[in-house]
């Protein structure tokens, strides 16, 4: 796949030439693009070949190899459970969902139970806005087939890759589970927020516990999914209301451990991925960008949008998602 930072004019020419593309950028730029085989989402944060940056003049474009075919479509929130019905045999599906939307919540909480969801690589991201614009500007997604912008629901790009190529989806999580027994939690209810948690068999008021323990909420809670480390990031802690909010849901029956401290995000990425990333489709989390002070820093060869959540079958936080097409 080809990853490029293009002007809107360059992106439009590529679309009109029939390319299959995933596009990220400022919504006012995405709105100018012609109809075609593409989906898009709003963000102004990017990891580029020259490092992390904020940009409102270019679009981050991933172009699938020649010979790829795709169908772009929009799914309303009520129809999300039918997501896999558009899967192309042997292909891959990209999905973009606007942050803070009903679709965001529904996919996060219910997505793993959607029929046939895991039958092919499903990846994507949650679109966002500049952090200074949260609450003022609504994140959006774009269905290139119809030339339509949406602030709820999901846009999907079902891609059929050239014969002989095989898609491979994985994640890079720089966080590991910590080993402090007082920082191991389970939750009685599913949701994007929690009032109560269980620690060492005792039910506690979670917000007060987080505050009293001085827990670093820049570190995610990390669950072990049969060997895959899956993060849930803290959004806010309100001891008065007794509520802790997260950027992804917690689930009952899952053990979460506070991540071990992380000194240098960029360096840790580099250590984990080496020189990989060239030609991969990837996205990385806005929290890694902010907490890791990634502006101007490189994440090896991985370039792409910086997002309000990442999707690799399920919603992730503080994680890099990557797709490779191998012969």
């Amino acid at each position: 796949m080809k990853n490029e930072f293009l002007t809107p004019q360059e992106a439009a020419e590529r679309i009109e030439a029939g390319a299959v593309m995933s596009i990220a950028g400022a919504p006012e730029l995405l709105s100018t693009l012609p109809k075609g085989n593409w989906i898009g989402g709003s963000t102004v944060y990017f990891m580029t070949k020259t490092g992390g940056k904020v940009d409102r003049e270019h679009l981050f474009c991933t172009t699938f190899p020649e010979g790829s075919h795709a169908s772009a479509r929009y799914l309303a929130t009520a129809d999300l459970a039918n997501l896999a019905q558009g899967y192309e045999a042997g292909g891959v599906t990209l999905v973009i969902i606007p942050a803070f939307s009903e679709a965001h919540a529904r996919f996060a909480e219910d997505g793993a139970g959607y029929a046939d969801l895991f039958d092919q690589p499903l990846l994507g991201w949650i679109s966002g806005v500049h952090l200074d614009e949260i609450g003022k500007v609504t994140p959006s997604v774009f269905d290139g087939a119809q030339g339509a912008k949406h602030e709820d629901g999901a846009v999907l790009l079902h891609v059929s890759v050239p014969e002989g190529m095989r898609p491979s989806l994985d994640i890079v999580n720089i966080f590991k589970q910590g080993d402090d027994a007082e920082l191991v939690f389970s939750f009685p209810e599913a949701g994007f927020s929690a009032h109560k948690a269980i620690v060492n068999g005792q039910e506690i008021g979670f917000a007060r516990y987080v505050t009293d323990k001085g827990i670093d909420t820049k570190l995610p809670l990390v669950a072990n999914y049969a060997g895959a480390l899956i993060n849930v990031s803290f959004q806010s802690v309100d001891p008065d209301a007794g509520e802790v909010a997260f950027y992804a849901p917690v689930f009952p029956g899952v053990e979460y451990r506070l991540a071990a401290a992380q000194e240098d995000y960029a360096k840790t990425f580099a250590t984990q991925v080496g020189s990989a990333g060239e030609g991969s489709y990837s996205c990385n989390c806005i929290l890694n960008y902010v907490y890791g002070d990634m502006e101007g820093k490189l994440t090896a060869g991985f370039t792409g949008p910086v997002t309000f959540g990442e999707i690799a079958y399920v919603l992730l936080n503080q994680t890099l998602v990557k797709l490779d097409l191998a012969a």
Partner: protein
Amino acid sequence: MILSETDLTRAIKGTTDLAAASLATRIVLNRLRVQARTEPAKLSGLVAELRAFVAKNSDAAAELAKL
């Protein structure tokens, strides 16, 4: 590769990580394990769900066979 009912049940009731498995297999297995712990009466339905997943994902059978 064909996994028996016993193999699938053992995978769901187990706790071993699938370090080398695909992300899909790990997430699916974890979800079924969590459900089996919280709602053990549904085990047979969860085994059927895992069997259906394996039937459509040939790599998953080999990955689960290593447990």
